[in-house]
């Protein structure tokens, strides 16, 4: 059942559950931050509307910088602002930023310890019809090994707003990962957001498996949990919205309790959430894991629902993964 302590959306499992793009929370968070802190500035590379930077640009035109289609320049300009007392947010699609400008970010923001927040939009195959060129599915893998970066992957628009605001309070580089299409709102304004903490959204007595999910696909994991419960299979579903610094303690505790793990992410199955969870458990309590995500292939054009079905990342695929991992348990 849903963890009552977290005050999640009571309509979460309703057919008419509210659906809002995760990226909308970024726009709302920026405007709130902009009002609170005159040092907050936002840069964009010709994607102001779709990265939800537009409202900030209208409210605070002096603090908004449109750099055109030039992501390397955007990163390094932001780096200059970030070492001059500003809190700079750079907004683009994740395939371009931190994709195209990876080294610029590494040198001028991360190693340089500049106060810049990198907002990677249109992540995952959820980006849909635009096709694989615009679906960032390796972004976390490509930046996670950087020292001196924090990585937030909010699960819905409300958490996205909180993560944006929190990132503005952190001195130093942060990566924020957002998705394009509408997706169910799982949390409420009252749900606590604590950077670096994994929260259990779905609890069970004597759970057999823990599912760690990240981003919008967490909802598919919750749907799977509900269906599995009806079949008599008990699981936990945890929201891993901070990939770095990782809440290793909670991962180990939950894995000890269940002795089986499934990871769920709209990203390559290697190098992202599955990567951090397996690295953590390999060091502590090696545990069987099944990985939901892209299996070393690129995505393609299509509707998000069609794509997650085809690439085995939906509720049904998660249910199968749970059964597979139970069969692999040493105690089985």
């Amino acid at each position, binding site marked *: 059942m849903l963890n009552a302590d977290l005050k999640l959306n009571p309509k979460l499992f309703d057919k008419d559950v509210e659906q809002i793009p995760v990226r909308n929370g970024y726009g709302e968070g920026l405007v709130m931050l902009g009002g609170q802190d005159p040092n907050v*500035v936002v840069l964009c590379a010709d994607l102001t509307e779709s990265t939800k930077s537009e409202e900030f640009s209208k409210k605070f035109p*002096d*603090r908004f*910088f449109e*750099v*055109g289609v*030039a992501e*390397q*320049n955007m*990163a*390094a*300009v*932001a*780096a*200059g*602002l*970030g*070492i*001059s*007392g*500003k809190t*700079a947010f750079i907004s683009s699609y994740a395939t371009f930023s931190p994709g195209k400008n990876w*080294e*610029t970010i590494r*040198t*001028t923001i991360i*190693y*340089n*310890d500049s106060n810049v927040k990198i907002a990677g939009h249109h992540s995952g195959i959820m980006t849909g019809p635009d096709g694989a060129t615009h679906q960032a599915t390796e972004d976390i893998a490509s930046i996670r090994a950087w020292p001196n970066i924090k990585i937030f992957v909010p699960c819905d628009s409300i958490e996205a707003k909180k993560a944006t605001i929190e990132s503005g309070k952190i001195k130093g580089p942060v990566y924020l990962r957002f998705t394009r299409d509408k997706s169910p709102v799982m949390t409420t304004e009252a749900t606590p957001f604590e950077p670096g903490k994994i929260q259990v959204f779905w609890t069970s007595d004597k759970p057999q498996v823990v599912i760690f999910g990240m981003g919008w696909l967490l909802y598919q994991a919750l749907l799977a949990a509900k269906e599995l419960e009806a079949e008599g299979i008990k699981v936990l579903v945890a929201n891993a919205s901070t990939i770095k610094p990782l809440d290793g303690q909670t991962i180990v505790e939950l894995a000890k309790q269940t002795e089986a793990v499934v990871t769920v992410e709209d990203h390559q199955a290697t190098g992202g959430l599955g990567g951090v969870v397996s690295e953590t458990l390999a060091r502590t309590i090696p545990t069987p894991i099944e990985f939901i995500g892209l299996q070393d292939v690129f995505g393609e054009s299509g509707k998000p629902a069609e794509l997650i079905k085809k690439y085995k990342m939906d509720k049904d695929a998660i249910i199968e993964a749970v059964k597979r991992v139970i069969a692999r348990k040493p105690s089985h």
Partner: protein
Amino acid sequence: MIIEEIHDEKLKDLELKATQARELVISALLEAGSGHSAGPLGMADIFIAFYFHILNHDPKHPEWADRDRLVLSNGHICPIRYVVMAMAGYFPVAELKTLRKINSRLQGHPHRTSLPGMETTSGPLGEGISQSIGMALAARLDKKNYHIYCITSDGEHQEGNTWEALMTAAKYNLDNLTVVIDRNNIQIDGFTENVMPLEYLRAKYESFNWFVQEVDGHNIRAFVDAINQAKAVHQKPSAIIAHTIPGFGVDFMENKFEWHGKPPNAEKAVKALKELRTLEGKITSEHE
């Protein structure tokens, strides 16, 4: 703020300092056993001009908020910056021996948080003008009137990011930004005009709506005059194309691209130092 004219005595002193800086560069590179020779020697006059005449700075308070910013985009010539910073009092000259060695603040390419006064991290090319733009925008937002100077190499104008930055600085009318281009015509693989032609560089900058001047990069007085001209321009960023001789002061290194990316061995260093000391002697004798 206008930079004062250089009287003759001061000029002699700066020229002497530039030669001393070259000697320290050769010694530091010999000690390090790796690093770049030609660029640092070619830019000695300009770095001396910046730290001992142009910059509004305080070596004892490198974080002073109102200081002018000197950004080094082509980080590989950092030996000359380290040398001149040490001479100016940012850290002891003896520390130059640690260049490129373990546990040193003097990294092979500059690292901002390792060394107070190092305005930013650089090495990968083409990223300095963009960072300077960020600083210039921040100064404008904060209503500060410090100036941002950015030293670049000619070779890094082959990076696309450089041109992205040139468009941006012009768009935002950044008259608090001056870019200095070390036009020494060499890069690792050969002469710039053979590797990937840059000319007409001046016309390119002008067509990007920059105010452009060209000077002899070994004429300190002319360089300071150009800086004053640049600072007098309104609503436009400025560029100064400084024509320099790579390896300047060491005959066998001058204009040789082979010396772009390597240090002298002991024998060559002795030869170079001898030549520089003769040069230093000449300058001193001119004083007398």
